[in-house]
């Protein structure tokens, strides 16, 4: 069962930006795209554990700040030719409130 937590408000995540959520399971990056969608990924790049939360967000992907892998925000998969996955977490936005589910 997923446990839903209210973590923050929409306005608290910068557009085309991110916030880090510290949890028992490690850091989780919350992203908000220019289009207003919110996604959550484990804050570790599948390449060498770079903090994805610190990358540049474009469209629905984030570019890792360490060596430039592109990671899809929707499913955490690295864009070809790179291979790897950062675990995605379910997110729900209700009005202004942003909820995150920890499995």
């Amino acid at each position, binding site marked *: 069962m997923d446990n839903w*937590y209210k*973590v*923050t408000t929409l306005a*608290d995540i*910068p*557009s*085309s*930006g991110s*916030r*880090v*959520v*510290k*949890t028992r399971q490690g*850091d989780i990056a*919350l992203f908000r795209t*220019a*289009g207003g969608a919110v996604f959550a990924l484990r804050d570790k790049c599948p390449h*060498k*554990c*770079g*903090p994805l939360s*610190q*990358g*540049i*967000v*474009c*469209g629905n992907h984030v*570019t890792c*700040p*360490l060596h*430039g892998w*592109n990671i899809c925000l929707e499913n955490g998969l690295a864009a070809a030719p790179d291979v790897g996955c950062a675990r995605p977490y379910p997110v729900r936005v209700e009005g202004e409130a942003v909820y*995150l589910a*920890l499995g």
Partner: protein
Amino acid sequence: MEKMKLVMIGNGMAGARTLEELLKLAPDLYEIAVFGAEPYANYNRILLSQVLSGEQTVRSIMLNDVEWYAGKGITLHLNRRVAKINRANRTVQTADGEIAGYDRLIIATGSTPIILPVPGNDLEGVVAFRSIHDVDAMIEASARLRHAVVIGGGLLGLEAAYGLLSRGMDVTVVHLAEWLMERQLDRAAGRMLQKSLEAKGGKFLLQKQTERILGEGRARAIRFTDGAEIPADLVVMAAGIRPNAALAEAAGIHCNRGIAVNDTMQTYDPRIYAVGECVSHRGVSYGLVAPLFEMAKVCANHLARLGIGRYTGSVVSTKLKVTGIDLFSAGDFGGGEHAEEIVMHDTASGIYKKLVIRGNKLAGAILYGNTVDSAWYYQLLRDGRDIAGIRDSLLLGQNHLGNTGHQGENRAAAMPDSMEVCGCNGVTKGCIVKAIKEKGLFTLNDVRRHTKASASCGSCTGLVEQILASTLGGAYAPQTGAAKPLCGCTELTHEDVRKAIREEKLLSIPQTMQFLNWATPDGCAACRPALNYYLICAWPRLARDDPQSRFINERAHANIQKDGTFSVVPRMYGGITSPDQLRRIADVADKYRIPTVKVTGGQRIDLFGVKKEDLPRVWADLDMPSGYAYGKSLRTVKTCVGSEWCRFGVQNSTQLGIDIELAFDRMWTPHKLKIAVSGCPRNCAEASIKDVGVIGVDSGWEIYVGGNGGIKTEVAQFLAKVKTGDEVMEHVGAFIQLYREEARYLDRTAHYVGRAGMDTIKQRVVQDTANRRALYDRLLYALEGAKNPWAKENVNPREFAALAI
């Protein structure tokens, strides 16, 4: 008055060029109809090799698209082959029955690839290399099949082989002669070429004759006359071409292999002209575009009824368009009686040069490995110049002839106006310079459009760029190869984008992307930071900075480390610190348990391993300005101790360094910028490898620019010598502003100076006093009020904090 009817058969490079030339001279004389057997408008056939190798696309090689024809009022029939010419009633008839009448006719049907008459040549998988259709078939095959065999080791065959190798196929070239390109190269150069291609993965079977192609329905293998067999899923016939004269011959026009024409490009029927590869002129048929374009010019002139200009034949030269192989051949190098040879062969560095001289004239040249002098030799050859006086140094190239410097721009500047730059289109240096000046051209693409220089095979692109650089100096917007887009989100170049931002007064990234039709909704990690910089550079204090379009270092004002922590480098102006500063640094290191404190290579102190959420408090406790060690910005101004203490010092370098650092602090630049000031020519601050280096001498200061100590060491070049510190400031500021305004994002000054050329930079920063002041003022305007990003009032701690559950 009714217009005369002009019909053209064949819509290839020679034909379309003839129409272009004609419309320039007589736009309204004819009603024009064109019949082309291919489904495409006019494209650059030469670049099919690059399409095959993946360096170009079909779209990027289009020369005249369908709209061009429509815009000129030309009726274009694509995909329609003319089957018959009826000279008696002056009509042509297409294979599908359409009839069109003409007053004048141009035949420009090119040539047909020779398909060896061996059994199996009609199997599936056997292709020629001539059209987009063929290249599509080869690309498609390369994705599925493994073994390719190219029959023919000439220019075309080798380019096909290289393309297929680039696409991952296993490629064997089969060649009848003893060495590759035997008509353009001697044995030594042919062997060197083979070695280079072998290094790229190609295999070669020389002196082999194909007997048959084996396979049921589709090709499977090739058998040679000596009985040997090799697997062959794809067979490319590149064994030569034959002028496509059948149509003319059937109409009773005199042919001699090709369609026979006189010096005005007229066939034996005076209403009918012929141009291009289908022609036989004085018994010669050509297979390269340069002569065809000359023919086009002459033909157009006569069709326009101007009646001047005769085509008298061409000396052709050859370049192989295989990336990484430099090869040039021209004229006759066979030797023979009275011929003398000068040869240089450096096996270690892979350079081969052979010049053939006959009667004090250059008769032929082969250059392998280093072709920078090809344009010069080609010119000597065609002009038939007497080389007796320069014979001793002829082999060493043009540079050895006089006062030309070592830089490319100097070389271009030293070229005589009459020297031909673009061999394909016969464009001289004078013609290019004139177009640049009169039409206000700035980019390679502009020059291509207006003069055609480098618009065909592209091998003179470098030279054209040098001419642009030497003519325009810093105003020159360089490109490499085909116009290189800023990133995958647009087809526009850095220069196009900067121009639009300036001219359209674009002030934000979304506005810019919308105006320029960006292909992605909000760009990528490559274009967003570049756009952000271009906007704030063009419109200081007006365009809003977008932190989300900056790399994390510039967003967090600290350098990210491999473990996700950050490093903090405070400014120590000119490398000067104090016990108080050092004490604070020590206290901060203790308080925040900073694991590593290091003195950097830039004369200051770096605190490594700071957690992001601690950054605001670390800065507050340090109470020192940001050192911008993370930014595309002014980094350190390194100084030496100078005249204050040093027994050799003649100038106060420390103070000048501090002044410079204080003045230009907080500035955004295309890439990081490093400065150093030394107090005497012993140069302990290593000013000669900095973006800007200042060296004290007894009578003042010498200023150097464009140095780099990083990836590729570059020694800074002399800019000016001045007397006072104020003058240093103004010159340095003006140079930096020029760099800010004209360099591409992520170009260091060394790259920028290399492109713009020192002569022009000197002209604009040193000689032109008014321009220097204006540049300097623009920089000061941009810097006025720039804030220290570490100061409490400018930091929002929320941006650094984490959430928790």
